[in-house]
């Protein structure tokens, strides 16, 4: 009986210790799952400073924290693969860094590392306003949240990095 109690106690203790880790891992899995779907929208906010784009990226997730975490990743993804439309406030249309619609599949291994949690994409993006969400940029749609964050993407540095890695061709490569 004493041995049984001991086992139960140890099991409870272990469960208590690992449960935060399990929860954290679960959150990360959730974030990655949301990222894999690449559900986001981007829009130009203003003409970015030299070599940057200032964009608002809308990310979706059931958990607002996850959506905020994914915003940076989505922003870089958007700049590489989607580009964005301009607006009446003087923001011009921007084409994606690549025109190859299959690039993501072709270079799957590269982008898997590139967009991994804490991956290289982090070098090219920063949050403005301390990462605070503006009122009106946090909207609950059905059971999930749509979170808008304004980020600055260092598009020149990003292009250079991808060119050097041989992922995309240089602007002058066609000439």
């Amino acid at each position, binding site marked *: 009986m004493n041995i049984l109690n001991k086992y139960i106690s140890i099991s409870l203790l272990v469960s208590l210790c690992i449960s935060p880790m399990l929860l954290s891992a679960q959150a990360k899995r959730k974030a990655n799952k949301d990222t894999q779907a690449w559900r986001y929208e981007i829009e130009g906010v203003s003409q970015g400073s030299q070599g940057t784009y200032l964009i608002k990226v809308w990310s979706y997730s059931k958990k607002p924290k996850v959506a905020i975490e994914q915003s940076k990743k989505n922003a870089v993804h958007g700049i590489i693969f989607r580009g964005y439309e301009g607006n009446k406030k003087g923001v011009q249309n921007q084409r994606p860094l690549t025109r190859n619609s299959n690039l993501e599949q072709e270079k799957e291994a590269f982008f898997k590392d590139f967009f991994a949690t804490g991956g290289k994409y982090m070098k090219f993006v920063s949050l403005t306003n301390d990462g605070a*969400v503006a009122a*009106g940029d946090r909207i609950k749609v059905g059971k999930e949240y749509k979170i808008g964050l304004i980020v600055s993407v260092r598009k020149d540095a990003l292009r250079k990095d991808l060119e050097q890695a041989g992922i995309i061709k240089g602007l002058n490569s066609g000439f």
Partner: protein
Amino acid sequence: MKVKFFVSFLTIILAISRFSAQEKVETTYLRPSITTFYVSPSSSSAKNVVSNLTANNSLEARFDKHTVGFDNLTLDYPAKNKKVYFPAPPKKPDSTATTRERKKYKLAYAAYASEKVELTKMQKAYKEAEEKRGELLKERLIMVNNYIQSTSKPVVARWFSRDSLGNMNIHLWEERAHYSANDEHVNQSLNSSVSRISTLGEDLMKKSYIVVYDLGDIESYEDIYNEKDRAKKIKEKYLNIEFKPVKREKEGFRVSYIRYIYKLNFDENVSNVFYEKYWLDESVTTNREEIKNHWETASFPLIKQHVYSGLIEQSQPGFEEYWAGVKTSKKRRSKEDLLNSLGNNNLNGSLSALKKVIEDFQLKTSVFKAYPITAKIGSKEGIKLNHRWFIYEIHLDDEGHQIMKRTGWARATSIGDNKGIATGKSPTSIFRQAGGKEAYSGMLMQPKPGGAASFNFGYGLVSSDQSTAGFIFDMDFRIGNLAKGDFGRGLYIGLATTSNFFRNINTGEIKTIEPIEWDIYDSIPQLDSVSLDTIGYTPDTASYSINANLFDETDSTGAATTANGNSSVVYLSFGREFLLGNRGKYFIHPKFGIGIATYKFNIGDANHLYATMDSLQVDFPAKDLSSLYTYRTSVRVFSLSMGVHLTPMFSLILKGSIVNRAQFSAVYNSNNVINTPNTGASSSWGIDKLKGNTTFPIFAALRINF
């Protein structure tokens, strides 16, 4: 059916209180600018009123004052016509009237009928004059509207600092934009090659409001009362009653006004026309005269927002009796003084109260970080310590409409001093959440004052002494709203009550320690001293006394004595609410109070108290029985409430108390009342502990906050 109705009603109320649907929720607060103009009669007194109003015009911190060099309008009202009053007909004599009285009535009635004919003619003329005046008033209103429309041009000119040569610039735009910009704007600018701050100026210009006060003629209270007297005098002319002037409640002056609020419509179309036709700066060298000519006829559309009628006055009590009774420190002001100070009012001082009708006047911000909840708003917007703010989450419904759903509420505990130009790292104000769901960055916040008074309704769950339990009704007033320190913030002062009713409880034997005395004439009021003398009583002492049992152990049948009545505890309380956790959903509220505890027995159960005086039975006076059978003592209460905030309005609480009561005494003569031990007094109602006791009742209650 009733239940169904109640459920539907509650659902609707909850829905209204928690949601507010809009096409798109406006989430940003941009400082509105206010320009004030006056329309007034031409009299020098009216000019003085305008001068006073202008001098006292001060805006709340959330607004920008937009001063322009444009004349106020002087415009008289058409003269008022003298109103025609009709007398009441003379009172017809009844059947007991004398012939002389009847004759007098006939004469009076003939005079009345004759005057009525004349007055009817006069009234016709009055009505015609009023119609003409109505036309003049319409014309005047058109002139006022034209004036209001004309004020938009100087407002626009001021925004662009237009000079005498017609040159414009956007310096004021930039100045205002820099002051209004928050950290979000600044941070975006820092990451942008285009200054976002300057473009903010255009948005600010779209928040231009024009406030016009159209003042009426100054009226003196003396004239107002004189007119009332005239009407009364005419009405009572044939009633054969003495005329009494109306009471001069006030003396002084008053002036009515109409306040118009318009918003400048500087939308894209207007903006395009402005830059095409009217913009001029030093770089423009061609067509300058043509552009200047265009400007002369320029007008900019205004949109009416709100119209309000009000009254300003300078007055004091006008009847002599008042001044006869006042202390010398208060001086009666002269009429000249009252007239000269008419208009010493800040009519623009509470424009923010219009936030429900003018959305731009509503302060709003977003949760910057949580927890503690911080927001980029502060002294620049004039927010107040301890004021309550609601926290909202924006939802998108199936039709794509945005819905504001309240998720929590908080109070400002520290005001950030953000006066000055935003840097991107401006100080934040701190808020303490007081209930609701978890707050996140990006949630919308709006001030919603309230929660200053709370009312608890509940019932005792457990108590060893039912006389300190039963129904509770507490009133608590949040005095902490006035506090600046942390501790004072949640302080309450209040009045707490518990009351209960008892039926057929055993009293045992209860008596007073001292003899009960009473005035013999109260017992036998029908006897005077002479008749008392006849039975040999010398009323040297008017009082009489007995050593009486208030209750005997058993009644006349030999059964234990029982009684009905009620008990209560009333005390003044002081307490503080402590919010628990980040969300403040749960709270504890310790209170200390001092007051009075009472037993009040129905006098139908009272003993027949009497003494004998020779052969005469002297009953205790019936009128004093109630106070003799009411026992009272002082009480000290310490209570600890634990509660949960359900909504800003409703909370559930569980309140445990320590109630300490001292020796009870009869209200009639303050004599202590005591139990005779082992005579069967009910312990569950504390009847056996009249010498004092301590009990521990526990209550459940619903708290309603207003």
